[in-house]
């Protein structure tokens, strides 16, 4: 793990990058990293995130700045800007059921090629996908998702990079911290080693590549 400034971290991200962003309706999102992505005007981004949040909040800021060309998400219902960009063909959106979305990211982080899920069988979601029968039940084969970068927000990070999360801000952050080539983390509090008890660490230190230093 390396401690870096938010400017240095975002400078590593090229235009056109494929990026996972933690958070659920803007809760548990690395806001400082997103603000800096907007400031450095990284364009043509391919984003993997649960939702599009709302304008001005969390991942919503990237749509405000029209930086996203492709979005893999479970819904965009509360962000009219993302919807407009989709209807104007400026934004391609892949919609994925939320449980499938979580499993595909987890598979990507855990070295699995994919999972068999009953969700979506017999619906529009099944179109173009392989169906596999196990003991007489039909499942969809849903393949792994990975990204070049994961932008993760934790509650506590220690000096080594161990992370813990608070309440409903955990959401997709721990699984995304496993599913990207480079993992960049913001934390509400950076604390000494040992403050997070071993049993309470959710993301072990070796998974974190860069921790954003305080302001």
């Amino acid at each position, binding site marked *: 793990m390396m401690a870096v400034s938010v400017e240095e971290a975002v400078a590593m991200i090229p235009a056109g990058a494929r990026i996972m962003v933690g958070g659920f309706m803007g*809760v548990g999102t690395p806001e400082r990293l997103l603000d800096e992505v907007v400031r450095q005007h990284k364009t043509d981004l391919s984003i993997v995130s649960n939702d599009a949040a709302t304008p001005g909040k969390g991942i919503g800021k990237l749509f405000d700045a029209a930086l996203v060309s492709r979005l893999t*998400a479970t819904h965009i219902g509360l962000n009219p800007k993302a919807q407009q960009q989709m209807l104007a063909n400026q934004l391609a959106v892949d*919609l994925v059921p939320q*449980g*499938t979305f979580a499993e595909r*990211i987890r598979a990507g982080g855990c070295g699995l090629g994919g999972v068999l899920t009953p969700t979506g069988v017999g619906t529009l979601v099944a179109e173009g996908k392989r169906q596999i029968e196990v003991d007489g039940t039909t499942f969809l084969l849903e393949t792994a998702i990975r990204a070049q970068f994961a932008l993760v927000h934790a509650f506590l990070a220690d000096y080594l990079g161990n992370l813990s999360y*608070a309440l409903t801000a955990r959401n*997709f952050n721990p699984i995304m911290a496993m599913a990207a080539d480079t993992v960049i983390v913001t934390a509400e509090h950076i604390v000494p080693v040992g403050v997070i008890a071993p049993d309470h660490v959710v993301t072990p230190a070796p998974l974190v590549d860069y921790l954003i230093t305080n302001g």
Partner: protein
Amino acid sequence: MDGQTVIARRVAKELHAGDLVNLGIGIPTLVANYVPADLKVFFQSENGLIGTGPIPEQGMAHPLLTDAGGRPISALPGASTFDSAMSFGLIRGGHVDVTVLGGLQVDAHGHLANWMIPGKMVPGMGGAMDLVTGAKRVIVAMQHAAKGKSKIVARCTLPLTSTRPVSLVVTDMAVIAFSDGKASLLETAPGVSIAEVLAVTEAELVIPDTVPEMKI
């Protein structure tokens, strides 16, 4: 009593002590208001919490404790939090005893359509498909008809949420159950006759010998 309240009160009667319950947005959210104080059920919020409590008092909200819509909630003693893979492991794995969801259409087979209206904006399915596929019981809480058109249809014309049939539909007019591809009228709402239900129900309804009035 308005239709939403009828629905919410009636659905609340379907919950049992110890149940893990997931409530969708809209009418389903109201169900929590009608659970008796001495009936201990666990409410899950699919963004990663079991043990959701009421909206916190003024000044007590925490930005990292919200429902799936991002609105502040509270947590009860004994609550637990977890990541999204776990949250949907609970849902898909059959650990959620009851989910209550809104609906656009339910057909005679109990198939639910509630996520997409073709030609209109596509907001996305969120967690609905996993909930309908995975929860032990799926209860749809919705108005019986919209703009005079039955939402209990012979066959869904909107895209399905799942091919797994729902257990029960509770509307402002009736309680309907599904088995073997047939919809049965279990109860009518207070002051609503069987004939009135049939008049606004497109799907064929099996009418048992006795159809009691909802007790709410």
